């Protein structure tokens, strides 16, 4: 009788342990599946004898963030004596040093902005492909008063494959883009910015690269600083003439092209405690 009871309890223990393993496995797998798709992973790694914390973009397989754990990513010597132009070259040096991680070359950078706020410089770049900017690409970092770059943030596309010539002419592309806007003439729309870009489109497991004519249209009404009217961005595929992006634009301050922006003096920006 005792033996039977012991066997019974052993069986129960066995079943419960099997069930626990099954439940744990299920939880593990369900977490993997539901964990926000495309959520980047972060890891501590050693790169050329340097300890780095890297957050990867699971789709592009390029780093989103790199931080130096025990040391800076780069230190610029005689920083206080460097000119603005020399400071903006830091990006090239940084990319050269971490090229195999970033998977792009220093010649693929185009300066986006460089501003000094208090004692810190903030520098950012676009990634280019054969001279064309990749839409929404970036590499940026700050340089402290000692010339140290401790981390960088990036959205890079390591293996761009985009057409290098257009099959559709510029005029034709403009017409296609204009047709997307209802009441284009009545609204007296103006083409305020245009460019040829590489437009990366993220798919489930891959990225498609379009060489596009990118247009920003704004109705005349939007040009008034007090107006709340926005504009439109239209991207036309330079190979097929298809519209690959059409969206409404919010107004940047002052309307409508950021290049017109004049930075305020740093003194105005300093917090007054």
């Amino acid at each position, binding site marked *: 009788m005792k033996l039977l009871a012991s066997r019974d309890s052993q069986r129960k223990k066995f079943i419960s342990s099997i069930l626990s393993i099954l439940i744990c496995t299920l939880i593990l797998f369900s977490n993997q599946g539901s964990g926000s798709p495309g959520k980047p992973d972060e890891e501590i790694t050693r790169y050329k004898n340097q300890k780095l914390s890297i957050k990867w973009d699971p789709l592009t397989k390029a780093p*989103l963030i790199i931080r130096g754990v025990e040391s800076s990513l780069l230190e610029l010597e005689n920083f206080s004596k460097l000119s603005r132009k020399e400071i903006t070259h830091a990006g090239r040096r940084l990319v050269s040093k971490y090229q195999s991680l970033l998977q792009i070359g220093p010649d693929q950078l185009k300066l986006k902005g460089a501003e000094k706020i208090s004692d810190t410089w903030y520098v950012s770049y676009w990634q280019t492909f054969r001279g064309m900017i990749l839409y929404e690409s*970036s590499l940026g970092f*700050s340089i402290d008063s000692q010339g140290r770059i401790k981390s960088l943030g990036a959205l890079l596309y390591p293996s761009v494959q985009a057409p290098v010539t257009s099959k559709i002419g510029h005029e034709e592309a403009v017409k296609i883009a204009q047709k997307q806007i209802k009441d284009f003439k009545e609204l007296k729309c103006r083409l305020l910015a245009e460019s040829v870009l590489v437009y990366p489109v993220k798919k489930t497991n891959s990225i498609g690269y379009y060489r596009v004519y990118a247009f920003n249209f704004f109705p005349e009404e939007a040009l008034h600083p007090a107006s709340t009217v926005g504009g439109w961005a239209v991207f036309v595929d330079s190979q097929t003439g298809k519209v690959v992006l059409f969206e409404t634009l919010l107004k940047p301050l002052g309307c409508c092209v950021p290049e017109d922006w004049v930075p305020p003096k740093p003194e105005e920006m300093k917090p007054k405690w």
Partner: protein
Amino acid sequence: MVNSKSSKLFFLVLSIFFVTIACKEKGKQFVLPKLGSAAIDFTCHDLKGQTWSLDKIKGKVVLLRFWTDWCPHCRYEMPVIQNYYRKLNKEGFVVLAVNVKQSPQVAEAFTAQFDVTFPVLVDLDGKLAQKYGVHTIPTNFLIDRQGIVREICIGDLFKDKTFMQSLLNYFSEK
């Protein structure tokens, strides 16, 4: 005769109906909340996957800021906001920086450059911005501890002395 009159009336009513709808739609897009009104509550995820709502942080002073990475003002002001946040966070100052209509990766790469430690919310479809009537980037809202909209600033936050003074008043009182 009667037919002609009634058809005219019908078209008149129809026109009024469509004009009203059109006005409503236009109004719906860009109406900023009124100063002194209760801030519209929302639920939005940040870059770390955490969910935020105004209700959750009631009792704090909130700077609700709508930004994008293509806006130079946003770039320029980000480190300054971070300074304020670092200084005032312990006294109940919360910054909710809402990235409008950009991918989380774009927002993440941008904020990493500035070592931002406040929550960066992702408004992928721009619906939250629309809810707040945002038509220009950047737009800032100061929401007090009771959840009331106290100041609105479109553009350079640190040039708006009234906004900044109101913000600092909540903390200098202590």
